[in-house]
């Protein structure tokens, strides 16, 4: 069983993911070559992953305000919950990896 996400856990993107986007919707499709799995994710989830990938906001604590700024939203409790859930999904799917200290 996985530990609950902590605010100060640092994250990095999984390697070699293939992201695909088409002009007719906001959604993204991501291919995980190690597992062969494919996921359909929202534009906001892709933005969250991109924030992890660029290294500017590697912890959940930092990601919430960074995502709020990127989406032009208020960093309220609802956004915090969604960010936490989305990061947990990405962890389960292998799209992000925890950085061990």
């Amino acid at each position, binding site marked *: 069983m996985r530990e609950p996400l902590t605010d100060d856990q640092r994250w990095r993107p999984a390697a070699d993911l293939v992201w*695909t*986007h*088409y002009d007719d919707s906001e*959604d993204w499709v991501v291919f995980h070559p190690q597992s062969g799995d494919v996921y*359909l994710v929202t534009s906001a989830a892709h933005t969250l992953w991109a924030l992890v990938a660029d290294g500017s906001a590697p912890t959940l604590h930092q990601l919430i305000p960074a995502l709020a700024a990127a989406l032009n939203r208020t960093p309220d409790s609802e956004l915090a919950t969604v960010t936490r859930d989305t990061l947990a999904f990405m962890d389960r799917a292998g799209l992000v990896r925890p950085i061990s200290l």
Partner: protein
Amino acid sequence: MRSSSSPLDCLATSGVQVSIGPFLVRVRSDLNGVHEYLRRLYGDFQVAAGEGGHFDIAIVATRGVRRWLRPQANLILNGERPFLPLPGNLAGAGFEWSLNWCVGNQAPRWVAVHAAVVERGGRALILSAESGAGKSTLCAALALNGWRLFSDEFALIDPDTGRLTPLPRPISLKNTSIEIIRGRSAGVVFGPQGVDIENARFVHMKPPVESVRRAREDARPAWVVLPRWAAGRPTTLEPLPKAQALLRMTDQSFNYNHLGTKGFACVADLVRQCDCYTLEYSDLDDVLIRLESLASS
């Protein structure tokens, strides 16, 4: 009565080679049902006595007393036995199921997606659906109404070119689809009717000779359609976001992940160049008109 000059006379001994789309398939069988099935449904294909091929399919009778009491057919595919023996009366259809297994598992040159494909004017329409959604019924109706049958089971995507490779074969029809298609095609040949392990009645429809003759002509993918037959519902053809179409196509692919990133990129590129739709229908004539209009646009 069998013709003395037929290559199929070698079926029970050295076997025969059947050219099916890009594949040379070696078939061996000591069962009359397989001989009759090939004679009836593969009469327009190139069949020659000989050994070797991309796939080696042997459909052989179980030995011993069972052979006489309750005949069974053993399927040996490239030396493997991936299936339990079939009842002997399903041996002919067992050839199709064997070929499905071979293409889905052992044709790594192509990305194989579970879908029916028809072609018109060099553009291919891909019908991707789960079993029971009316994919083969629609495919058969289109093949009898001016579209070229590309394949009833597989969209074979060439990852090097992004184009689709034809694999015309008999179309598998189930339950009420059998009568629907029989009623629309007086001159079409059908194989024997059987009942599969899911208790569904099935029959195979001989592919149009023109489709077999043009089995080396590839096509550009143009449309991805996710059909669903729904009793009493009007025909609706609605645009489908490409991201969702890609998810469906990868979900229905047998081997894209074996090809890794190249396989995924191949399917993603195919979707990019297609217009994608969901289709709900109950009236075949109506949906034929709708798809005709799509092809004309």
